[in-house]
């Protein structure tokens, strides 16, 4: 399983990766900084034409992204049959109930709020890492 982390802030991406690794997450982690990249990556289009990355994928998606934002990526992937079953986890910074509702309505699988305080943030990401280690995905997704 390859974990695709879509996060435009490189610092934030690095901190997420570090804490996933601390939870003994040994999967490949690919960091993408824009929404369009996430869609291209999955479909092996544009920059990723001919790419041979290992399947299945699991997406960790930030909502505030330049260009195609998180909602659009979510809509795009969940509307399309070949990409619909990719597990998609939203990593949000806000606790706005309407935002949570909107993401689930668009078909996200799990919605998480990143705590602002770093120790809690690190603990939350480590728990996510432990959770990911027991997630079972269909082959070839």
């Amino acid at each position, binding site marked *: 399983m390859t974990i695709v982390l879509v996060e435009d*802030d490189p*610092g*934030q991406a690095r*901190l997420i990766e*570090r804490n996933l690794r601390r939870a003994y997450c040994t999967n490949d982690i690919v960091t993408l900084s824009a929404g369009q990249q996430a869609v291209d990556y999955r479909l092996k289009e544009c920059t990723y034409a001919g790419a041979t990355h290992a399947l299945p994928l699991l997406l960790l998606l930030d909502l505030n992204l330049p260009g195609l934002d998180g909602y659009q990526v979510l809509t795009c992937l969940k509307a399309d049959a070949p990409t619909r079953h990719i597990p998609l986890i939203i990593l949000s*910074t806000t606790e706005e109930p309407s935002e949570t509702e909107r993401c689930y309505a668009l078909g996200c699988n799990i919605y998480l709020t990143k705590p*602002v*305080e*770093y*120790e809690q*943030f*690190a603990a939350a990401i480590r728990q996510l890492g432990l959770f990911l280690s027991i997630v079972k995905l269909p082959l070839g997704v």
Partner: protein
Amino acid sequence: MEGRVKERTVELEEANEEVRRFAYIVSHDLRAPLVNLQGFASELRIASDVLQAALPAVLPHLEPSQRTDVSHVLDQDIPEVLGFIETSVTRMDHLIGAILHLSRLGHRDLHLESLDMQALVHGTVQTLAHQIAACQAQVTVGPLPTVTADRTAMEQIMGNLMANAVAYLVPGRPGEIVVTGERHADVTVFAVRDNGRGIATDDIPKVFEPFRRVGSQDVPGEGMGLAYVRILVQRHGGEIWCHSTWGVGTTFTVTIAHQIAGGPRAF
């Protein structure tokens, strides 16, 4: 003339809305790098702990002068630097949080209802009972009229004014706090009067500004209380002002409009 006034009002409301959005964006967008700063400071601390743990085994292999330098860096420099980074980040985080809160108060929907202010202020007095008893203050309330307003907002307004009145009493002088209220033609007027330390005339306008704290800094607080109160009062179509005589006491007066437009307001 009336048309001109209307035009100006619309312009002002637009400007207010702009400032509000600006405050919201600034506080949200400032927070992201701050969270990273806090995160990487923690990561540095973790890395430094790893070095610290390895130090006893490594030190004997170093030159004496190097040994002193290395232990100084690990024992003193790094912890000091991290300490400063962390306190600054925390301070900045509080400031951003306060601005965010202020912009939210300016935007939150008001739930207008008829409020028994006598009961509401009585509740405030009970919340402050411990502090009031500690400084042996005498609190006289009302009689107060009912008012149509947002309950939470009125609780915050009265709570803040009364907590200030209690906090800034003069130690050793029996405190007297009087809350009055009166219904006028267009507004209801409430006043909180104390016989506390008072505010210097030059400082009076500053007390309503965000983060400004005046007088001797012996009472803890973030300097946002009256900024919050002012925005809540403005949301109720009202005004707040302050009369004070240094060393004698302070009166804060608040008006609440009978007819509230209820649009969002920026600070």
